[in-house]
């Protein structure tokens, strides 16, 4: 029960601080908020401001619990002191017909029923895939470090983390489910804002129905009760839209400040949500027809967004990491990873976009989560184009829909939903009974047992979790049904503090304090996994030598140039070792040599380290102009250059060039003879040795991982010692250097 109360308190304290800070800001900006608008809009505005304060605390590396508590308490005291906390007086209740009362009762009952379901799930121990993975894994890591640090082994740390900044103080007090409850508060705020918007435009039933259509949607339910950020992004976007509407009504320049802050916070919350910032700038420019208001919005937005840009610039040498790595080249995220990742996100392996319709509407097994078939009615929202509010809603809705195709996961539709459901509700409002039936139908189909029946593979809530929420079932007991939780525990138990673990799949990082290096989540990770794969996968091993032979001559600087256009986008150029020879004797590699490569200059030493378990890779599609360049620092007599390489870049064509005394490159040999190569050292021992040199002494392999049997079959051939095996996974320790005998035992 103590844990349950801590979670609730952590979340409530954070939410109260957001509301308080937003109330103070709203009062200073004299935002013309009505009673029903005050909580949602003040909460969203306060969330934006508080996120910046937490960012500053992390940047200063003073994220200790007392500091975080002070950061939450100060706004609350401030708002209480000034009285800004209070809600404005409301109007009296309108007179209602019997039908109105019936609809009110129905809508209220549905909302209450789902709120209980959602609250119990958000309050229960958190175990959503990304929530217990990187969202809270990074929060926990920042808390351990008391501030930001470069997490080069997890590219997710380069995404903006505006919502996670609010998870952080909640997590510090109430751990994982406190963060999920904070996200749930965004869902409540979104629904209340939509409700208030309906009242503002004098279409209260449309507002209520639109809000419910979003609130009840299965993917919104599971996302909004997990430590994710999609629902928060939707709330922020709707908040921007709402404030823009108020600005248009009131033409009060101070509102532009709030618009800018919230628009910038949309970028800070989620890159894709920044669509609303574009909409805001466009609308302000269109309506004001002056530059000054646009600059005001842009400047306030920059205040919220720029810290994330700068953080990425400092930590990842790329202001918009993890994207554009081909422009902002850096050693942390490879262009090849970005290409593969973004192309996967654009289709999730589906062959056509038409397949998305059954996926997101009722199947949800690939794109994770469903909207529910009742939302097939959304196109009727176009009928709302007849009215100004309908037109206004459909523009941001369409913008978010367009952005959706960058990541077709169902939850990436959430930011567009408030706009689209409100448009639909507006269109159907003249036929109120139809609208009521649609809401009731959606409520019935979205209830977890119904969803499980029709969409058994969808990511969705299972049922209410009262016992788990109140910790009548302990967290351990509740989470024991998830095998990943046991695997994280295994790592926590067997890997000493500060230990680093190479893994080949995601783990719930938030439940272990050890650093998990997932094979695809960073350039270093990819390099480590590549070394291990070279240990057993034939096509990655050095099995051929490309030999450039030429009459002996004195050379000072040489480069190997890639000349082919390679159509297979996955084909990279790679080289295990480059060796220079004269009279069949290899030139010793002197410290005066200077090595360069393009692209990926950071790994060039891996082609000159005498280890066949490492290789330089271009980490982008092979194309003409790529090179490896060696400056000997003095003239060396050379008659042969040998490139030891694998079979996985068959279309690469190379030319050997030397630099003449005028600094021009001249061809030494325009093709290489291919010879077979058989390496008789141990690639496996060499691979684990390289891991050890990089501070990685543990390898975690699931039985289903690629190559799992190669590790389990004879771990001693790798210098690995099996230290635990459970829940379908094995944890190995790399035997300390020189103690291979130990691993044999």
């Amino acid at each position, binding site marked *: 029960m103590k844990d349950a109360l801590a979670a609730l308190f952590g979340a409530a304290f954070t939410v109260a601080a957001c509301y308080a800070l937003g109330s103070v800001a709203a009062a200073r900006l004299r935002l013309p908020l009505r009673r029903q608008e005050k909580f949602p809009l003040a909460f969203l505005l306060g969330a934006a401001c508080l996120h910046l304060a937490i960012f500053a605390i992390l940047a200063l590396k003073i994220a200790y619990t007392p500091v975080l508590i002070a950061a939450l308490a100060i706004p609350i005291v401030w708002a209480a002191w000034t009285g800004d906390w209070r809600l404005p007086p409301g109007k009296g209740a309108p007179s209602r017909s019997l039908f109105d009362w019936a609809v009110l009762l129905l809508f209220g009952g549905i909302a209450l029923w789902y709120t209980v379901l959602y609250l119990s799930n958000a309050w229960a121990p958190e175990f959503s895939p990304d929530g217990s993975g990187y969202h809270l894994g990074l929060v926990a890591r920042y808390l351990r470090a008391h501030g930001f640090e470069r997490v080069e082994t997890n590219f997710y740390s380069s995404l903006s983390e505006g919502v996670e900044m609010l998870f952080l103080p909640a997590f510090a007090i109430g751990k994982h489910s406190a963060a999920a409850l904070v996200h749930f508060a965004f869902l409540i705020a979104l629904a209340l804002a939509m409700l208030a918007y309906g009242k503002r435009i004098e279409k209260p039933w449309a507002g209520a129905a639109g809000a419910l259509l979003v609130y009840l949607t299965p993917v919104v339910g599971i996302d909004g009760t997990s430590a994710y950020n999609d629902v928060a992004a939707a709330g922020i976007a709707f908040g921007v839209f709402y404030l823009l509407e108020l600005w248009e009504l009131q033409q009060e320049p101070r509102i532009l400040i709030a618009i800018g802050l919230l628009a910038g916070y949309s970028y800070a919350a989620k890159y894709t949500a920044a669509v609303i910032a574009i909409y805001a700038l466009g609308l302000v420019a269109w309506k004001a027809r002056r530059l000054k208001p646009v600059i005001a919005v842009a400047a306030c937005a920059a205040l919220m967004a720029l810290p994330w840009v700068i953080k990425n*610039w400092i930590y990842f*040498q790329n*202001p918009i990491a993890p994207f554009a790595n081909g*422009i*902002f*080249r*850096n*050693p942390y995220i490879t262009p090849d990873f970005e290409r593969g990742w973004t192309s996967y996100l654009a289709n999730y392996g589906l062959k056509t976009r038409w397949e998305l319709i059954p996926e997101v509407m009722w199947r949800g097994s690939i794109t994770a989560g469903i909207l529910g078939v009742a939302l097939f009615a959304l196109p009727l929202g176009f009928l709302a184009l007849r009215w100004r509010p309908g037109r206004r809603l459909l523009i941001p809705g369409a913008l978010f829909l367009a952005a959706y195709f960058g990541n077709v996961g169902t939850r990436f539709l959430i930011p567009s939903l408030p706009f689209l459901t409100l448009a639909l509700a507006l269109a159907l409002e003249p036929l109120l009974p139809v609208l009521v039936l649609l809401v009731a139908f959606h409520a019935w189909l979205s209830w977890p047992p119904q969803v499980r029946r029709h969409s058994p593979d969808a990511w969705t809530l299972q049922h209410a979790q009262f016992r788990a929420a109140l910790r009548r079932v302990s967290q351990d007991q509740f989470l024991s049904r998830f095998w990943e939780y046991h695997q994280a525990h295994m790592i926590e138990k067997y890997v000493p503090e500060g230990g680093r673990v190479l893994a080949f799949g995601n783990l719930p990082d938030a439940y272990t304090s050890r650093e998990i290096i997932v094979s695809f989540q960073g350039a270093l990770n990819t390099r480590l996994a590549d070394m291990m794969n070279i240990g057993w*996968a*034939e*096509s*990655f091993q050095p099995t051929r030598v490309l030999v450039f032979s030429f009459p002996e001559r004195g050379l000072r600087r040489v480069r190997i140039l890639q000349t082919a256009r390679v159509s297979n986008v996955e084909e990279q150029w790679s080289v295990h070792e480059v060796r220079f020879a004269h009279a069949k004797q290899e030139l010793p*590699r*002197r*410290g*005066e*040599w*200077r*090595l*360069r490569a393009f692209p990926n*200059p*950071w790994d*060039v*030493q891996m082609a*000159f*380290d*005498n*280890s066949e378990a490492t290789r330089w890779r271009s980490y982008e599609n092979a194309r003409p102009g790529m090179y490896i*360049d060696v*400056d000997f620092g003095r003239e060396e007599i050379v008659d042969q250059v040998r490139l030891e390489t694998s*079979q*996985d870049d068959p279309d690469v064509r190379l030319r050997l060039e030397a630099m003449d005394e005028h600094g021009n490159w001249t061809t030494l040999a325009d093709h290489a003879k291919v010879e077979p190569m*058989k390496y*008789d*050292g*141990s690639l*496996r*021992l*060499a691979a684990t*040795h390289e891991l050890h040199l990089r501070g990685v002494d543990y390898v975690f392999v699931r039985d289903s991982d*690629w190559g799992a*049997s*190669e590790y389990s*079959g*004879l771990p*001693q*051939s790798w*210098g690995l010692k099996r230290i635990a095996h459970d829940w379908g996974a094995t944890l190995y320790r790399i035997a300390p250097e020189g103690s*291979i005998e130990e691993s044999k035992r």
Partner: protein
Amino acid sequence: MKWIAIAGAALALCGCQNMPEPYAPPVQRQRFENFQPYRVNRVLNMADPDARDHFVQDIADKLEGTWRWTAQRPTVSLTPASNQHLLYSIEFTIPKVTFQETGPVTISFYVNDHLLERKFYPEAGHYVFEKPVPPEWVPLDKPSILAAEIDKVLAPKDEDRKYGFVLVKLGFAE
């Protein structure tokens, strides 16, 4: 225009990246003696990223989860690290969809064109077959060809392909 120019210049400056200075050769690694015995097996899972590099014929390019359709004689090429104590190992399914058309089938298992065994399968279902391979059939340091030939295949008239069985893995085990 001035603001756009400033923003453009700022963006261009972002592109002026901190490319590293040239590197000196690193500490040279020592060779690790090959630890013997390596596990000699090489079972090709159809879902392995490099699986297609080993296909010789009659295995579909398209991966269906963890399996692929075969035609009549799916064949792979593998180089085991030893020829001692090897097992021919195959995991496959005779699906109902083909069985309804072909009825009971016989599958012949080959290593380098040597017939290892011919087995009769009277029912559709999931099967694993393993049998020791005589060492003399497997040359060292050369690829070996493993095949499994089904006697009857499904050949839909409207498709330019044949359906033999569903292959999950094939290779040498210990």
